[in-house]
C-alpha cells in the first residue's frame, strides 16, 4: 500500500494547525476586533488536538511502515534558476523531530488549558494567546524544519514571542527591561545562527541539512565539511545554542525571563524554549561530531553551565528563579551529553525534563498552599532550619555563596565588557555629531533635546 498520501496529509495537518491558529487569533486583534476568551481557548484546543493527533499518527505510521525519515516538501518558496538559489519549504519527520513536535503539542495543550483559567479576565489575555500561538508555530516549524532557513524562521518566531511574553506585564518597567534584555541576547544568538546558516550555504551550496549531512536519517548522518570548516560552523552553532538555551555566559537572562506570567515561564523557560539550543545541537550533531575541538567545547560549555546553575539554584530566594536555574542545570547536562555523542539519552533527557519542569513551574504559584497542606497532613510546621554543615563554612564557601547568589555576575560582566563600551562609543560619536552640526548651523542644532510635546498635541487640543 502507498502510504505517501497519508504521510503528506498528516504532515500538512501538523504544520497547518498551528499556522491557522496564529492567523485566526492575530488578524482580528490587529483590526481591533479581538475574539472572546472562550473562543480563543476553544480554537487553541482544537489546534493543539489536531496537531497532536496528526503527529502521533505519523509516528504510528512510521513505526508501522518502518520509515525513519519522512519528507514533506511544500515546494520551492523562492528560486532563481540562473543563480542556483533555492529556498525550499521542506519538513522532515524523523526520530528527532517527531518526539519534539509531540512534546511541543502536549506541553502547549497543557499550558493553554492552564492559562485559559489562570489568565481569566486578565487585560492581556488575548495578547498572551496571540503570542502563545506564534510560539507554538515557531516551535513546530523549528522542530520539523529540514532546511536551515526554515529552522531559522521558527527559531526567530520563538525568540520574538518569548521576549514579548517576558514583557507581558507591560505597565511596569521591570518586565519590559527584562524583555529587552532577553531579546538582545536572542539577537546575538540569531546573528550567530544566521552566519552559520549562510556559511553552510556558502561552503556546500546546500540549504537542506539532510543533504548537507548525508541522506542517512538522524542521528547517523555525516557531514561533508572539512574539520576546520566544521569547527568554524560548530562554534557559531554553539554561540547560537548558548544564547537560546541560556548557557554560560548568557545565563543571566533566564531568571529575568521569569517576570512573565507563570504559564509562559513554564512552557518557555522550563520546557520548550530553553531546550531549543540543545535541539539545534542535536540537529547539527554531525557537524559537532566532525571536529574534536567543538565536541570538547560543547562538553565544557554544558558542564560549566550545569555547575554554575546548580550553585545558583541553591541560593535563590524565590521559587521561580530557583526553578529556572534548576532547569538550566539539566540543560547544561543535556548539552554535555550531546558533546559526548549520547544523542538518544539527550533526547530522552529533554523530554523527561521538560515534562517535570512544566509541572513544577505550574505548581509554583500554589507552593504556599502545598506547604500548608503538608503541614496540615503532618500536624505541625515544616522545619525551616538548614542543616548544621551548611551554616558553618570556610571563606571559600562564602565566596562561592556570594558568587552564586549574584548569579555568577554574568550579566554584569557582559554589560561591562560588551554593552557599556559599545554604548559609550556611540554616545561619543553622537556628541561629536552634535558639535559638528552646531558648528555648521552656527548655533544649537538639536532643539529636540529640550522640546517636549507640541502644544497642539491631540490631548492639549481636547
Amino acid at each position, binding site marked *: 500500500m502507498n502510504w505517501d498520501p497519508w504521510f503528506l496529509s498528516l504532515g500538512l495537518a501538523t504544520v497547518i494547525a498551528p499556522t491557522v491558529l496564529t492567523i485566526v487569533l492575530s488578524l482580528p486583534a490587529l483590526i481591533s476586533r479581538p475574539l472572546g476568551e472562550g473562543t480563543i481557548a476553544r480554537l487553541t484546543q482544537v489546534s493543539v488536538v489536531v496537531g497532536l493527533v496528526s503527529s502521533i499518527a505519523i509516528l504510528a505510521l512510521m513505526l508501522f511502515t518502518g520509515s525513519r525519515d519522512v519528507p514533506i516538501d511544500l515546494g520551492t518558496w523562492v528560486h532563481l534558476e540562473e543563480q542556483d538559489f533555492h529556498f525550499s519549504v521542506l519538513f522532515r519527520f524523523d526520530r528527532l523531530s517527531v518526539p519534539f513536535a509531540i512534546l511541543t503539542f502536549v506541553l502547549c495543550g497543557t499550558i493553554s488549558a492552564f492559562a485559559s483559567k489562570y489568565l481569566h479576565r486578565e487585560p492581556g489575555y488575548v495578547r498572551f494567546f496571540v503570542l502563545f500561538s506564534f510560539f507554538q508555530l515557531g516551535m513546530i516549524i523549528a522542530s520539523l524544519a529540514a532546511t536551515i532557513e526554515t529552522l531559522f524562521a521558527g527559531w526567530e518566531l520563538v525568540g520574538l514571542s518569548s521576549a514579548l511574553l517576558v514583557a507581558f506585564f507591560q505597565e511596569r518597567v521591570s518586565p519590559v527591561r527584562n524583555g529587552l534584555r532577553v531579546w538582545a541576547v536572542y539577537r546575538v544568538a540569531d546573528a550567530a545562527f544566521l552566519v552559520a546558516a549562510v556559511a553552510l550555504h556558502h561552503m556546500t551550496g546546500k540549504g537542506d541539512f539532510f543533504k548537507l549531512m548525508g541522506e542517512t536519517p538522524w542521528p547517523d548522518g555525516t557531514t561533508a565539511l572539512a574539520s576546520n570548516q566544521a569547527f568554524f560552523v560548530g562554534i557559531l552553532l554553539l554561540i547560537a545554542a548558548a544564547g537560546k538555551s541560556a548557557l554560560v555566559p548568557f545565563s543571566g537572562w533566564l531568571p529575568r525571563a521569569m517576570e512573565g506570567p507563570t504559564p509562559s515561564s513554564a512552557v518557555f523557560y522550563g520546557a520548550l524554549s530553553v531546550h531549543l539550543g540543545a535541539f539545534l545541537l542535536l540537529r547539527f550533531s554531525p557537524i559537532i561530531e566532525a571536529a574534536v575541538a567543538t565536541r570538547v567545547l560543547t562538553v565544557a560549555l554544558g558542564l560549566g553551565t550545569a555547575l554554575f546553575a546548580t550553585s545558583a539554584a541553591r541560593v535563590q530566594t524565590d521559587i521561580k528563579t530557583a526553578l529556572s536555574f534548576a532547569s538550566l542545570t539539566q540543560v547544561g547536562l543535556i548539552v554535555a551529553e550531546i558533546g559526548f555523542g549520547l544523542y538518544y539519552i539527550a533526547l530522552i533527557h529533554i523530554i523527561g525534563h521538560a515534562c517535570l519542569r512544566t509541572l513544577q513551574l505550574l505548581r509554583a504559584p500554589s507552593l504556599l498552599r502545598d506547604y500548608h497542606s503538608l503541614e496540615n497532613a503532618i500536624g505541625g510546621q515544616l522545619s525551616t532550619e538548614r542543616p548544621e554543615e551548611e551554616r558553618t563554612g570556610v571563606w571559600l564557601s562564602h565566596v562561592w555563596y556570594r558568587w552564586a547568589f549574584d548569579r555568577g555576575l554574568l550579566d554584569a560582566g557582559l554589560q561591562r565588557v560588551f554593552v557599556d563600551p559599545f554604548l559609550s562609543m556611540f554616545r561619543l560619536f553622537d556628541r561629536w555629531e552634535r558639535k559638528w552640526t552646531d558648528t555648521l548651523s552656527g548655533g544649537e542644532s538639536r532643539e529636540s533635546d529640550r522640546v517636549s510635546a507640541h502644544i497642539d498635541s*491631540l490631548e492639549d487640543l481636547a
Partner: protein
Amino acid sequence: MIELHIPWLELAVLLPALGALLLGRGGRPEVNWYRSVWFNGLTLVCATGAWWDFGTLHTWEAHDRWSVFSTVFGHEMLVIDELSAPLLPLAALLYLLTTLTTLRTKQRRFSFSWNLLSESILMATLACKDPWGVIALLTLATLPPAIELRARGRSLRVYALHMGLFVALMIIGYAMVERAGRDAVHSAWAMAPLIAAVLIRSGVVPLHCWMTDLFENATFGTALLFVTPMTGAYAAMRLIMPIAPDWALQSIAVLSLLTSVYAAGMAMVQHEARRFFCYLLLSHASLVLVGLELATPIGLTGALSIWLSVGLSLGGFGLTLRCMESRTGRLTLDGFHGYAEQAPVLASFFLLTGLASVGFPGTIGFIAIELMVESALDVFPVAGLAVIIAAAINGIAVVNAFFRIFTGTRHITTISLGSRPRERFAVLTLTLLILGGGLYPQPGIHSRHHAAMKLLEERAQSGAITDESLKRELSGEHDGDTEDDGDPEHDGDPEHDGDPEHDGDPGQDGAGGQEGGLEQEVAPGIEDNAEPSGAVRLGGDEVISVPPTTGVSEDTPN
C-alpha cells in the same frame, strides 16, 4: 521602444503638479487635505497603471504613448523600466498614506501643495533615465524641503551646505564623465565627484548630518518623503552603476557598509524618536547601496528587493511614529510612555514594520536580507558579517523603541488615542503588502532578479565589468533569457513592437537568437563593428564569443 497603452507616466507626473498649483492658492487645511488625498490617490492609480501596463508588455523598458514631454524636450524623457516599475507605485503609495494619515493636529503645519509638487518631481525622477534629466530633477527635488525649512524659521545651513555640494558635485561629475565619453571606463578623477555626490545624497558617513538635521527641523512628513524613496540609490543606479569600474562600486559598498553598522549603533543611543528613525532608515538605505554596489546578480537582486521592503516597512514605521507624534508631540526615548493600551493597532504595526525592516521571517524583508548576506559573503566575508551585525543591532533598537513608546507604564488620557479609520486603512494596506510579500515572495524576487540582470548587462555593455566569471554568467543569462521570458520586444514580432529599428533586425536574428541580452540595446557603434554571428561585445576591446544556442535558434521565428 515599446509604448505603454495609456500615458500613465505623464499623468503620474502632471496630476500632482496640477494639484500643487490648485492647492497653492491657499484655502482651509481640511479642504486642502481632502483634495490632496484625491490627487495623491489618482497619482497612485496612474503609477500602478504604468506598472501593470508595463508588466503586460514583457519588455525591459517602455515609454508613454502620446508623449508631451518628448515634444517639449526633443527626446523621450519619461521611460519605465524594470528598475523603476515597482518604485513608482511604491513612492506614490507612500505619498498617499502620508497625506491620508495627516491628522488635524498636523494639517496646519504640513504643506499639501509643496508635498504634491515633491511627488510630481519624484515621479518624474523615477521615470527618467536620461542622466541630465535625472540630475535636473534631483536638483529640483532639493528645493521644497529647503523652502519649508525657511518658512518654519529653522536653520537652513546644514541642509543647504550638503545639498549645494551634492548638486555641484553631481553636475561637475557628470560633465567630466561626458567629456571622457559615456561608454568608457572612467578614471578615479572622473568618477570621484559623481561618487561623492551620491554618497552625500545617500547620507553615507560622515556626510549624513543633513539627514538628521532635516528630521530635526522639517515636518516629519516632509523629511520622511524626502528620504524614504531613496533617490540617492536611484542616482547611483542611473548615473554611476552603468559606467563605474568595479573598484569604484566596491569603495561605495565598503563606505555604505560602515554607514550601515554606524547608523545602527547610533540608533541605539538616540534620545528622540525622529532621530532614532532617521538612523534606522539610514542604516537600511546604506544596505541597499551595499547590495547595489556589490554588482553581483544575487547582491543586486537582494538590494533591489531590500529597496522595496525598506520602502514599505520603514515607510510604515515612520508613518506610525508620525501618527503617534500627532497625538503626543515629539517623543523622547529616555523614558517609557505606555501608549500600547491606548493605541494597540499602532503599537502592533510599529512592531510589525520595524521587524519587517530587519528581515524578520514571514515579512517581505526576509528573503531580501538572505540574498544580501549570501552575496556579501561571496564578495567579502567580512561584509556578510557586517550586514548581519547591522541587522541584529537594528532589531534590538526597534524593540527598544517599541518598549519605550508603547509599554513600561500606564498612560491615562482624557480622550481616546486609538487609531482613526484612515490610519487603520493605511496600516492594513501596508500590513497586507509586507506580509503578502513575505509569504509569497517569488514574483517580487524574480522581477528584481530580472531587473538586476538587465542592469548588469548595461554595465557589461559599457565595459565596466572586469570579472570574467560574471561576464560569462551574463552571457549565459543572455542565452536563457529568450527561452523563459518570451520577451515580445525582442522576438521580432512586429505586432507587439512596432519599432522599426528592432523588428526583424537581421543583425539580431543573425546573432543566433541572442535576444533580450547584451546586443539588443547596444549602441550604434557596436552594430557598426559588425561582430561575427554569435559574438557579444562587452565593451572596450573585449569580445566574448557566444555560440548560438540550438534551442533558442529553433524557437526564434526568423
